[in-house]
């Protein structure tokens, strides 16, 4: 935990520096007669982020935050594994959208989660992971008139068929 905190503070400080640098593309000063320039607001607030990181680092040095006094690891093996399985599956979910369309990705994600993480029965897994995407399709495309991403071109015939049905 102790190492983790200072690493995070360091990363955030770097990010603040990047934001400050990026803000300087527009004037960051107080323009006479006009008030602050376009970069003023983000620059000085990013500066505030940096300063609060420094304050956090000072607190860490003095051991004031709970994390800085803790010898425990950030997460145990189980925690990391959970994060990998759950967080990783969300990342994979979003990555899949561009390949097999939103609905395909929803089906794949639900299938994986319910079957392998939730250990539910095949019946329940398949029912939810097939019916929910279809339900969502009708809700978004037919009722709400919102087109979801359709993935790569091989999904097109399926969508065209569905559109013939709903319109």
């Amino acid at each position: 935990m102790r190492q983790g905190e200072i690493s995070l503070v360091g990363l955030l400080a770097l990010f603040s520096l990047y934001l400050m640098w990026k803000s300087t593309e527009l004037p960051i000063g107080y323009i006479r007669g006009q008030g602050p320039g376009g970069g003023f607001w983000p620059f000085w607030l990013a500066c505030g982020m940096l300063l609060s990181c420094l304050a956090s680092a000072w607190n860490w040095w003095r051991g004031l935050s709970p994390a800085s006094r803790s010898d425990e690891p950030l997460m145990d093996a189980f925690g990391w594994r959970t994060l990998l399985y759950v967080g990783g599956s969300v990342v994979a979910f979003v990555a899949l959208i561009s390949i097999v369309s939103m609905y395909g990705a929803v089906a794949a994600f639900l299938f994986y989660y319910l079957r392998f993480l939730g250990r539910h029965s095949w019946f329940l897994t398949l029912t939810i992971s097939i019916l929910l995407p279809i339900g969502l399709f009708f809700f978004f495309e037919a009722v709400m008139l919102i087109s979801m991403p359709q993935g790569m071109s091989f999904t097109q015939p399926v969508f065209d068929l569905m559109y013939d049905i709903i319109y």
Partner: protein
Amino acid sequence: MKLTKRLFLALAASTTIATLPIAAFADGWQPKRPIDFTIMAGAGGGADQIARFIQSVVEANDLTNRPLIPTNRGGGSGAESLLHLKDARDPDHTLLVTLNSFYTTPIRQEALGVDIETFTPIIMMGVDPFVLWVHKDSGITTFEDFVTKVKEMDGEFVMGGTGTGQEDSIVIAYMSGAYDLKIKYIPYDGGGAVAKDLAGKQIMATVNNPSEAKGFYESGDFVPLLAFSDERMDAYPDVPTLKEKGHDFSYYNQRAIVGAPGMSDEAAAYYREVFGKVYDSEKWQGYLVSESLSPLIMDEAETRAYWSRQVQNHRQLLSEMSN
């Protein structure tokens, strides 16, 4: 097993029947998918209002066999929607409702790499003129009064608008140049907010489309001083134009629909027919009159010529502004 096989066959048969009529009886190209109807501005602005009006007319008269899906992509002063069209994955089903940031944004943000002349002209639904407005309590009744007042205040006269590089700022910049006026310009994030702060007398004058100021004009709060149109407007016959004052300048906001680059000729022809019907509809003709839009009917070649003229004009106006 037998059951599922039979079910499958039945499903296949029913879908064939469902698809047949469209395939067999359609004359020419028909959209196969919902039509991406991107709006170059946020929800609630003039462009948005027009897009939703058009969508309503299309829907009410059942003019297309697939729905128009209005989507606001106003980010980066329209840059977001231009990029969306440029990289459209299905150009035959991607349309854009534009305003003049269609011309100005690619000029102001060259890094986008958008060349609007590659886009596909569909239809010009009308052009929206600009008018100079003041509040009735200001006591200003003519454009000459306005010029005297602005000069008197020497840089303290406050006007509101929708931002540097936007339509109204171009008009204000031209007017200031022509009459040697010093104006304090406050940018807002939409025409509605500008009109509201003129009504609340937070600012002293605006250049707004008539549609945005009409309500306050009818209640007598706003006074129109000058129109930036080619001829006097029917709705404001007593308001002189800048042209009459001896300056060869007019400026309109375009209300046009364009297609993505690379749209097929058949698809473009289909949309021209659909929106042509909308244009001719009683509803739209009524809208043109009530919101003081001017018609500007052009075919494809004329539109392309118009575009390149507009790009040149705007390049010049914007470079004069930054000097």
